[in-house]
Structures are given as structure tokens and as C-alpha cells.
């Protein structure tokens, strides 16, 4: 429906051309050609979300109902899959009655999908949310779910409903996904966990040593992180549901681990053998290790491709830190950044088509997305402090990164095309976010 690129080209072809030429010549003389590209994709689906009803005989709790509605509204608006028909338009049609849906009314205000919600509040702090989805054009009921739980889980209930919407339309659910990060809000750097939207932040390590660089296991039940609790950086596993912590004894100084999204293998940086920082692969089940890089310069920041078959990393082998990819055997090394003198923090997108990384130009760090298919680069942040450690949402439509644009480092979310920037944290300094991979 809306082909952003095409319409832009038709309306302002001269401006686009001018921007590219001037941008390439004046603003970024030493850089690869940078273009802001909007990813081609399905147009967003217009959804109407009328006010929820209380189920008869249930206790009326308007605050709870409004919170549930508000969270679901914000989730759908964040999706980039759905677009919400503005609430003001509902005034022009008859009031929504879940027992007698007048589809033509909803079609008249451009809604393709209609969501009906009913809330039951029972005495013992429990709620049941009944959620029904209708296709307006075919006038059919297409999806229905009931979610029950304690009142305090009202946000989770809304997120579950939003996840069901994503799944029904063939998208990866992201609304119950979590993000781990590092915060010094209570003194030393410790690991914290939060919902994807920055809500319900909670501390999970309590050792008062420096804890850094968390990474999710493929089953989302364990976190691997780097800690100084024995004086030098070493890798630890934290089991989220048992609370147990274990040291990964690999000898030497180890940090910056990334867990394969497919199995129990990690890649990490270590200087254990010849004293130089190299990248190693370790099978967590067998304890078997393999060294992947061999040179006298810095190799670091390894990260898996979504297939678990390739690794993206930073190497100084050409003189300055640049981004490379290699196979799981350390072979087929391919350099993907050429211009510029400083790149790091590369993370492969969940669909495998893009790599996000940080580039430094004149002491500014910005987040860039490199498209592996057509070799184009999009710049996501500009002229706003240092921007570091980007991490993809499980569906690849959003990123969370840290930035000191407001003074201290805080976490922000931004969409793949640089839109919808929003700050997620504010207490202390917050950095090194890692979104669940799936």
C-alpha cells in the first residue's frame, strides 16, 4: 500500500539525488556511501481497538481495565506490523457492541482488523481477559484467547495478547521477550533484567564486583556474563530460574561471550595462550574448545549469525578495528567494513540479512546497519552523544542500544529505520543491553 521509497522518489527525486550526492561529498568524505533506506516489507495492517468491556457480574476496576487497554495499544503501535485506527474516528460510528458487531461501520473508518476485549475481575485478585479478533472485510472471527492471572500481571496479560496477534499474522512474538543489561544504580556494575518495553526492571546479580557483557542462552534460561569477582575478567553462567552461578574454567582472561542461538556453543574473547586477545569457540556440553583467530593484533567482540554457522567479530588486523565475518571453523574470513577507522559491537540481525555495528567518526559513535544482501548502509543515530552496544529485537524490527546523549549512559529503543526513538532507563548508568534472541 505505502511504498515509502517509491513515493519518495516520485515526489522528490531531485532532493533525494542531491542529498545522496551532497551527503557523500560533503558530510562524509571518508565514509562508505551512507543512505537511509526504508526496508521493503508488507504495509502495516490497520487495526481498531475499541474500549474493553467488563464481563457481567465481575467487579468493576476501571484502572485495571485502562492499564490493560493502554499496554495492548502501545504494544500494537510499537509493532511496525499493525497500525492503529485513531480513537477519534470511533466517534463517527455506532458504539462497539461485542454481541452485535456492525462490520460496515468499522470498514468505513478503514479498519481491517477489529479487536474485542472483555475483562473479568474476581475477588481473589485474579483477572481473566477474553480477547477476540475479527476480520472486518470477511466479517469473520479469526482468533480468540482467554488469559487469566493475578492482577499484578496485567502488563503480561496484555503482552501475551499482543504476541498472539503477531503469531496469527506470521510474525515473531516479541512482547514477552526480555532484555538483560548492566546498571550501576546500586553501586557497582551488576546485571539487571527488564521487559522489552523497559518496564519491571529487576537486579539479578548481587556480588558487588564488576559484572559486564551479559548474553542469553538459546533456551533463554541462562545468562553468561563477564565478572571481575576473582580479580580478572572471567566468564560465569547464571541460571535464571535456579539462581545458581557457575564459573567457566577455561583458564586465563576471558570476556565478551556470545551464546549460539541454535545450540550450546559460545564464542568469546581470551588471551589465555600466547597472551594475545583471540576468539575461541567452546562447546558448553562437552567442554571442547577451538581457537578461531591467530595473529598478533586485537580480535574481539565475537557474535553468532542466526544460523549458528558464522561468526561476526572485530579485528585490528588491517591496522584499525574493522568488522569481519568467518565460518565456525575460523575459515572464510570476510571483511565487511572498509572505510572509517573504528568499528565494533557488530550484531547479526535475526533474519541474517543485516549486521548492526558501531562506528566512530571524530570521537562520535553512531549505530549503523549494514545490509549484507545489497551492500548498503543505514545510519540509525546522529549527532546525539555516544551510541553503543546495539541489540536486535527477536523479529529484527527494533533495536535497543546505550547512549550518553542525556549525560550518563541510558538504554534507548529505536526502529530498524531510525524512527520511534524512546528512552527506557533513567536510574544510574545503564549499558550493554542484550535482547533475547528468540
Amino acid at each position, binding site marked *: 500500500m505505502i511504498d515509502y521509497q517509491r513515493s519518495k522518489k516520485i515526489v522528490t527525486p531531485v532532493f533525494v539525488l542531491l542529498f545522496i550526492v551532497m551527503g557523500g561529498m560533503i558530510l562524509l568524505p571518508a565514509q562508505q556511501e551512507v543512505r537511509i533506506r526504508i526496508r521493503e516489507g508488507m504495509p502495516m495492517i490497520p487495526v481498531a481497538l475499541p474500549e474493553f468491556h467488563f464481563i457481567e457480574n465481575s467487579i468493576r476496576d476501571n484502572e485495571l481495565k485502562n492499564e490493560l487497554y493502554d499496554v495492548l495499544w502501545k504494544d500494537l503501535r510499537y509493532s511496525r506490523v499493525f497500525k492503529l485506527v485513531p480513537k477519534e474516528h470511533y466517534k463517527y460510528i455506532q458504539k462497539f457492541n461485542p454481541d452485535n458487531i456492525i462490520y460496515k461501520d468499522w470498514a468505513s473508518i478503514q479498519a481491517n482488523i477489529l479487536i474485542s476485549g472483555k475483562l473479568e475481575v474476581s475477588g481473589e485478585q485474579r483477572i481473566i481477559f477474553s480477547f477476540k479478533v475479527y476480520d472486518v472485510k470477511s466479517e469473520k472471527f479469526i482468533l480468540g484467547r482467554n488469559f487469566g492471572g493475578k492482577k499484578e500481571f496485567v502488563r503480561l496479560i496484555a503482552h501475551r495478547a499482543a504476541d498472539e496477534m503477531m503469531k496469527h499474522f506470521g510474525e515473531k512474538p516479541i512482547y514477552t521477550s526480555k532484555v538483560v543489561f548492566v546498571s550501576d544504580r546500586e553501586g557497582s*556494575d551488576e546485571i539487571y533484567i527488564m521487559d522489552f518495553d523497559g518496564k519491571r526492571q529487576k537486579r539479578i546479580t548481587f556480588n558487588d564486583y*564488576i559484572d*559486564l*557483557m551479559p548474553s542469553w542462552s538459546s533456551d533463554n534460561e541462562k545468562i553468561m556474563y563477564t565478572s*571481575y569477582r576473582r*580479580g*580478572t*575478567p572471567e566468564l560465569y553462567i547464571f541460571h535464571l530460574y535456579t539462581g545458581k552461578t557457575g564459573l567457566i574454567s577455561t583458564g586465563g*582472561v576471558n*570476556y*565478551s561471550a556470545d551464546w549460539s542461538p541454535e545450540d550450546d556453543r559460545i564464542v568469546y*574473547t581470551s*588471551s589465555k595462550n600466547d*597472551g594475545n*586477545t583471540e576468539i575461541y569457540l567452546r562447546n558448553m556440553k562437552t567442554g571442547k574448545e577451538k581457537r578461531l583467530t591467530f595473529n598478533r593484533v*586485537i*580480535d*574481539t*567482540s565475537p557474535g553468532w549469525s542466526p544460523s549458528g554457522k558464522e561468526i561476526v567479530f*572485530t579485528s585490528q588486523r588491517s591496522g*584499525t*578495528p574493522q568488522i569481519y565475518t568467518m565460518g565456525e571453523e575460523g575459515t572464510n574470513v570476510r571483511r565487511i567494513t572498509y572505510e572509517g577507522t*573504528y568499528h*565494533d*559491537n557488530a550484531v547479526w540481525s535475526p533474519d541474517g540479512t543485516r549486521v548492526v555495528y*558501531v562506528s*566512530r567518526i571524530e*570521537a562520535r*559513535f553512531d549505530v549503523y546497519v549494514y545490509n549484507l544482501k545489497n551492500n548498503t548502509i543505514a545510519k540509525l543515530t546522529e549527532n546525539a552523544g*555516544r551510541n*553503543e*552496544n546495539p541489540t536486535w529485537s527477536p523479529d529484527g524490527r527494533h533495536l535497543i542500544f546505550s547512549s550518553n546523549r542525556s549525560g550518563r549512559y541510558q538504554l534507548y529503543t529505536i526502529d530498524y529505520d531510525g524512527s520511534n526513538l524512546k528512552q527506557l532507563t533513567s536510574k544510574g548508568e545503564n*549499558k*550493554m543491553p542484550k535482547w533475547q534472541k528468540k
Partner: protein
Amino acid sequence: MKRVSIILLMVVSLFFFTDSCKKKVKTEPVKEPEKIERVEETTPRIDRPVLTEEEIFEKKSLEELNAEGNLRKIHFDFDKYDVKDDMKPILHRNADWLLKHGSAVITIEGHCDERGTIEYNMALGEKRAKTTRDFLESLGVTGIRMQVVSYGKNKPIVRGVDEQTHYRNRRCEFVIIRK
């Protein structure tokens, strides 16, 4: 007239009386001393003991040794980890101290300024600590006496955005951990 003669008589008689008393006191003539008596100090004499440098070193706590600044920190160029020429004299002095105090074990901490990413600075800090250790080793300090650790940009000395701040933060620090 009679009264006056009585007073006169009394004064005269008093005079004679005192004169007769004086004659009764025997005085010995003072002789030149022949013997030299020895006078000695009565306060017990305890000298402040003169400690050897080793003994002084033994007495100090690790905190005191570190606070004294026996081992000075060195700084690096932006994005570099080789030891700068103007830092070599400092490392020579640090090596002299370490050779003199052969039991001291140190940690060399590598630090970076904030103009690098967290991950890359971890590696850079480690490289800085290691080239520093190698330099000290070339001056005769045994490698096993020197541990290295990188803090990347996680422990800046000063906060700020100017070059002077960055310079101060790009450093290796020497911490005595055993003696």
C-alpha cells in the same frame, strides 16, 4: 642625759657581743681540687634504631606502599598500546624499585579513555598492560611478579570530554598486591 648614756651602753655592749660570736665560727680555707670527679648521664640512653631499607619495606602495609606512589602510572597515545618514549624513564624507575624490592608482586591495570567501545577497550587495556609488563620484563623484572588486568573504560580517574581528561584516563597503573 642619763637615758642617752644607757642607750649608748647598750649599743656598745651589743657590738662587743656580736664580735665575740663571730670569732667562734671556724672557717676552712678552700683548696684547689686535686681529683676530677666523673659526672655521668643518668637518663638511660636508647638510640632510634637505624633500619635497613628492607626493614622499612617490611614494616609498611600494602596500602601505605601504594599510597606513597613508589610505582608511577604511565600514559598512552589515543588508540595505541605501545610504550611511549617519554614514559620509558618512568618504567625504568619503576623497574629499579621492583628490583630493589624483590619480593613485591604487582598488578598492572590497563585503562582506556571513553572514546572506544566497551568490548574493544577491554582488549586495548589488556594490550597496554601486557606491553608494559613486557617492557618491565626486559628491564629484568621477573614476569611472574607481574599480573595484568584490563578494566577497559570502566574505571576512569576523571570524568570529562577534553583531551587532558582522556590522556589521564589512558593509563597503566601499578598496584602492589604482595610483598
